[in-house]
């Protein structure tokens, strides 16, 4: 079956009542966004979605380890690497801390992973206020044009809730959810 043990895609033309979204949180375990721990922030976004639980649900998964395992390196086993890349693909919304974009060691693998996500997936990051905030936002935007970079908590909330309410919500974006799932299954198969 397409997607193998990793993923069960929707079929073309299928009617979806409730879509369960997987959010990849590529952040250090204690990371905060604008002073709020990530799980609390996501809870607050979920509670602001009227149809949450009726048409869309979203689980978050700590994916920093998975992301690090997906990076080719001298001591990395090919099998482990492919497994990590397949698992990451099953997440259509990625919430990534900005250090992953600014640090040399992780920015290349991240670029490669993002390039390979289906167009329907969305990667969101944020930059905390500070003297270098604008410079960092511009730098990430120039290298990762498809990534949504937020400078305020409101903007970050808007990006995450916008995605869950509209793109990942079958009441609004059933077609794109189905297309995303078919592409993910195909990419998993192609990885071998």
């Amino acid at each position, binding site marked *: 079956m397409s997607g193998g043990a990793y993923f069960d895609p929707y079929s073309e033309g299928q009617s979806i009542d409730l879509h369960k979204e997987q959010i990849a949180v590529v952040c250090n375990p204690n990371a905060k966004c604008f002073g709020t721990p990530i799980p609390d922030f996501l809870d607050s976004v979920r509670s602001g979605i*009227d149809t949450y639980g009726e048409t869309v649900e979203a689980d978050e998964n700590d994916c920093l380890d998975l992301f690090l395992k997906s990076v*080719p*390196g*001298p001591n*990395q086993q*090919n099998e482990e690497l492919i497994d990590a890349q397949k698992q990451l693909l099953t997440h259509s919304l990625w919430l990534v801390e900005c250090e992953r974009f600014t640090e*040399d060691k992780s*920015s*290349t*693998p991240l*670029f*490669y992973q993002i*390039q390979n996500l289906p*167009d*329907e997936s*969305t990667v969101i990051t944020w930059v905390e206020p500070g003297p270098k905030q604008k410079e960092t936002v511009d*730098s990430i935007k*120039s*290298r*990762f*044009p498809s990534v*949504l970079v937020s400078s*305020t908590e*409101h*903007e970050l909330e*808007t*990006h995450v809730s*916008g*995605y869950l*309410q*509209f*793109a990942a919500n079958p*009441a*609004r*974006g059933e*077609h*794109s959810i189905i297309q995303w799932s078919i592409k993910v299954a195909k990419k998993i198969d192609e990885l071998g």
Partner: protein
Amino acid sequence: MVNEWLAVQRVGEWAGLSGERLERYETVTRDILEKELEEVGNNYNLNNEFFEFLNEAVFSSSELVSILKEIGANPEKVGSFEAGSVPVEDTFSSYSVVDYGLDEVADFVMLMKLFKNITATTGSDSIAPLEKLHSLVYLTNYRLSETRDPRASNRDLDFGMLERTGYRYSFKREDSYCWSESLHRDVLRLCAWGLLETEPVEQVEDHWSVQYRVSLGPSAQMFLLRFSSKIESFRSVPLKEWEIKQEDVLDDFANVSQSGINRELNSIPQFTEASAGGVILNGRPKRFSSNPNTPLGGIQINA
């Protein structure tokens, strides 16, 4: 719909809103959007009529228009909201505009020439591992820095020709190889625009550190045609010197393995004497600016 939900934000920015005024607009617009989706959303095929739906049912609503007037949005843009004629698609495409300064273009063109020449020299259109690219660029700048420049303004700085020409990238030593954060940033920028492409190497090699390969991307030919002719038209001595040094480095090292390049690095005192993370060579300190009346034939070097 793929990220069409971003249209609300993009249109707000197009209307000249930012900060709290943008937040207020977004909050109101999203409420209207939610309501209208329930009420008239079914009248539209939202997969391909989402922007029409936004214009007809959301942006032109009297509630939103009065908020826009209240927060002082550009009157002409407010007119487009009222008329339901907001150019939603254009607000997305304006994000794809490439706007680089001459210094950046010079670096980009020389990087892409490096890839073009490496294909001619090695028969392979890519460079792997990633630190090999950094080494080749470093060696180009290193050789420029070792070439005496009679026009150098301050010989104490010991930049040689690198004072006036070469890449702007500064290099530091990693364990066994050299690396430039600014070069790396530019490689990713070029990848983002399709000028370069990067992918992991298929066969992981033990003595390689950053196991990715880079090659020219689908848009490179167009870029080279357009900008390298511009750069070449300067016919300046500094740029020619840059190109000659780069070609020399490729002649000497394009076919050499990373271990061989590491041996070369270990023969350079600035590299061997540096500790891990230490700077081994700063980038070109002077900037180019375009001015056809300068004696250098179009490139004015600003101190």
